[in-house]
């Protein structure tokens, strides 16, 4: 038997940390609040270290009667969220410093969102999952609208709130139907009860849940919110939203899909449908990204497309497919984080996120340019960067299941995506940035950039350790 607190240590630590940050914000006068960011960073590092230890050596268990899972899958995702949070915090130091107010609360809310994600990843039951999801989402509502004086930020917040609430309403409706059909909200039990025939009600429930989660992972046609919100939100928040929130939704989707949808007899049709959705997601995301002029919006569409790639792995299913998904989700963190770190830097120094404001970036900030290029190319799946291996896992898993068409679409679309990624690269390298300021990179930001790039390259060159982790995580699900 294990001690519940050891298993829940990361969650508890995060909750404590975020609440203490709030308290510090209240207790210490505004002028003296210097150490909030380092405190956050080091605490997160500690938690991350513990979680890593937990991944390899921790017990594997479902406790509270299967309501909360502590398997390697969950821990893997916790690592992912913590890493993402850590990187966002590191890269947002300067940005937050420029906020007029409520700087400490920013980190606090970020950590609360992370906590929500962890709950989502660990949830073995729909209510817990829902609460975790809402914890994350509500934190994000606030974070998205954090620039209270910026109308765009507020607009993004309102849009996100209304659409997010609507989508969680339909998710809840689906959960309620599932509950009605099975009498339970526990995934394992749902799976055993739903394994029979497809009924209209179970179908409706499935579609509703799919829509609710599809919203979070911005699956086309549930994606429409994401570009607007990504554009309007403060850049670090956009980063976190694009990386972690999506990954969390995927964690849930994998569990739900594996345990409910996949066990039904409608899997053939369902697979075809997911297949079509994934294909549309890849196509639409990549195509709309092409004419974008705002870097955040571009990355939004790019991340829509990435969701499509990830869906491919879910469709493929099996250990190899899931391994592909979670492997890709992890490298996606670093690739996207690199890009967003640069976007944050630009937003911080130039107050803009238009692509044209990256002009002459090569002269103004060579490091950031290199990082941006590497990150974008990793997103595009160009070797030797990590994205290539990730895509290889995903699509080879799909092809192994006979889904060759999706592989064609995926590979071709990812090459098309190079077009708009390179457009950004072109502006940075080619355009003359006359009159634009120098953009030096220092401290935590520099660390973030170098670190993400190194990880991106390292995983691309030697993916084995991460692949092993991903396999272990995937196996823990089956």
């Amino acid at each position, binding site marked *: 038997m294990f001690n519940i607190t050891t298993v829940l240590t990361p969650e508890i630590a995060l909750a404590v940390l975020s609440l203490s940050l709030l308290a510090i914000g209240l207790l210490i006068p505004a002028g003296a609040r210097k150490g909030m960011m380092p405190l956050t960073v080091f605490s997160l590092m500690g938690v991350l270290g513990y979680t890593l230890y937990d991944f390899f050596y921790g017990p594997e268990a479902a406790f509270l009667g299967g309501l909360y899972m502590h398997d390697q899958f969950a821990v893997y995702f916790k690592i992912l969220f913590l890493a993402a949070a850590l990187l966002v915090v590191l890269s947002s130091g300067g940005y937050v410093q420029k906020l007029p107010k409520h700087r400490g609360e920013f980190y606090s809310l970020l950590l609360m969102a992370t906590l929500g994600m962890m709950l989502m990843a660990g949830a073995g039951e729909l209510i817990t999952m829902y609460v975790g999801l809402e914890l994350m989402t509500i934190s994000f509502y606030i974070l998205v609208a954090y620039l209270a004086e910026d109308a765009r930020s507020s607009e993004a917040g309102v849009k996100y709130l209304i659409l997010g609430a609507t989508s969680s309403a339909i998710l809840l409706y689906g959960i309620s139907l599932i509950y009605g059909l099975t009498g339970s909200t526990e995934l394992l039990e749902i799976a055993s009860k739903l394994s029979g025939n497809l009924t209209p009600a179970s179908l409706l429930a499935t579609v509703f849940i799919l829509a609710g989660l599809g919203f979070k992972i911005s699956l086309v046609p549930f994606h429409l919110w994401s570009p607007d919100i990504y554009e309007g939100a403060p850049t670090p928040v956009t980063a976190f939203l694009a990386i972690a929130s999506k990954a969390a939704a995927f964690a849930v989707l994998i569990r739900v899909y594996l345990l409910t949808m996949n066990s039904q007899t409608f899997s053939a049709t369902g697979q075809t449908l997911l297949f079509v959705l994934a294909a549309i997601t890849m196509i639409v995301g990549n195509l709309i990204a092409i004419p974008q002029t705002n870097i955040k919006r571009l990355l939004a569409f790019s991340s829509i497309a990435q969701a499509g790639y990830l869906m491919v792995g879910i469709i493929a299913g099996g250990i190899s497919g899931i391994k592909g998904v979670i492997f890709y989700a992890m490298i996606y963190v670093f690739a996207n984080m690199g890009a967003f770190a640069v976007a944050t830097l630009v937003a911080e120094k130039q107050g803009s996120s238009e692509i044209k404001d990256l002009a002459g970036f090569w002269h103004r900030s060579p490091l950031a340019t290199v990082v941006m*290029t590497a990150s974008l190319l990793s997103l595009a799946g160009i070797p030797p960067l990590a994205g290539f291996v990730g895509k290889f896992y995903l699509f080879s898993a799909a092809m192994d299941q006979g889904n060759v068409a999706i592989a064609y679409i995926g590979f071709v679309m990812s090459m098309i995506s190079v077009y708009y990624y390179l457009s950004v690269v072109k502006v940075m390298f080619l355009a003359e940035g006359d009159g634009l300021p120098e953009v030096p990179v220092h401290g935590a930001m520099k660390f973030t950039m170098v670190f993400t790039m190194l990880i991106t390259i390292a995983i691309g060159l030697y993916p084995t350790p991460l692949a092993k982790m991903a396999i272990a995580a995937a196996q823990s699900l089956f």
Partner: protein
Amino acid sequence: MTALPTVSSMSMLLPFTLLAPLAAMLLIVFLPKEETKTIKIVAAMGMLVSLVLSLYAFLNYQWEPGGMQYTLTIPWIPDLGVNLALGVDGLSLPMLLLTNLIGFASIYASWNIDKRVKEFFVLLLILIAGVMGTFIARDLFIFFLFYEIVVIPIYIMVIIWGSTKRVTKEYAAMKLTIYLLIGSAFLLVGMVALYLAAGANGNPTFMFDQLSARQDLYSPAFQKVAFALMIVGFGSLISMFPFHSWSPDGYAGAPTAVSMIHAGVLKKIGGYGLIRLGIYVLPVGASFWAPYIATLAVISVLYAAFIALAQKDLKYVVGYSSVSHMGYVIIAVAALNPTAATGAVGMMFAHGVMAALFFSMIGFIYEKTHTRNIADLGGLAHQMPRLAIGFMIAGMASLGLPGTVNFITEFTIFMGVINVLPVHAILGIAGIIFTAVYILRTIANVLFGPRRAEWDHLTDIRGPELVPLVIFGFVIFFAGIFPNVLLGMIDSGVTSSGLAKVLETVSQAKIGGLF
């Protein structure tokens, strides 16, 4: 693999060859960017090391046992079955040498670069190393990895140091990049399919020889589809009609060094891949598609030769000419016999040297006159006799003049092809007439004719600028006069790698020919 102990003791030769330019690159990264001279010298030193090592590999290669030598195998991604497997045989060694020759010369062809020197050489060295990697890889995954590595540096180099003529350099760069990447997307599908099919026995692998040994796992239908994907991928790389349209624009937009490397070696990855992967691993698919490829190849030859006639820009002439010449390589591949395969690899080598020389000379012309428009040039032999010699050598090699390596390789190709695909061969050989027409026209209009006063201020190429001319001129004639050094090596590769055996089995039904 029957690597002899004496040979495998040199397994670090290839990694060093590969790493030398990368080491130079790293060194350059840490040099201040004002030190342009030092940067150039470091780059040249790095390539020199690499060149010497590959020359050593070439000369020290044991023809007798043949097969892969200097092998090195390190398990790399165990769950995918990827090995960091390096090695060269008679097919890849000439290409490796070619890469280093062109790489080394391209440094000197870029000697006069004065804009963002540091970045230029960093990217150039990455590019060269990437190309080198594709040729020494024994593992499909590694092969593909290296191939895709080079795409992006090229893009950046074209947009920064390229030139805008008929089309803008941005357009040219993007077209080149996206075209090749989309081609490689199909290739990737084929590669994954192949990998999965070969891994059906539960032992996944990417090694070329093992993929080839698992013939029984590929159904004929599978082979056909997979080979079709290879054609799209490698065909667009080698600029086979109708996938060629990136190539003239791309070369025209690119800076000299990139044109040299791209036309000289990068393009050859397509042909090399078709042989190494297409024919070797998927012989049944290859024999199914061979007639179609051959037809497309012949169209490439004649079509591009004709279009080259209508060109006004020097680089376009050479661009289309390389499309045309690559047609011969593809015909040879489609002929599916050892002679033609030898000729194909030889032709790739020969064309590489020739194209690199051509592009370097055009680069100097452009650098000095700031125009590549044939009508604006003329009589350059007056002011720049040495450049004119280089240009002439390239032109003569291009039209397959005996004594140059291009002739004998073309001849080998024709020899291999004519028995199997006589009609294609005849049409292809007719291409040499048109090649002569456009090459001689170009030479006449650029080099000869009355002296033009506006070029009187030009200085002839000298010093470092002469390196490409010397190297390529020497190689062109040396290998042309002693072709066995090159073709014998390739021949040993064709026979010892098992390719000849594969070809024998697939082409048995085809012997008979026209008469």
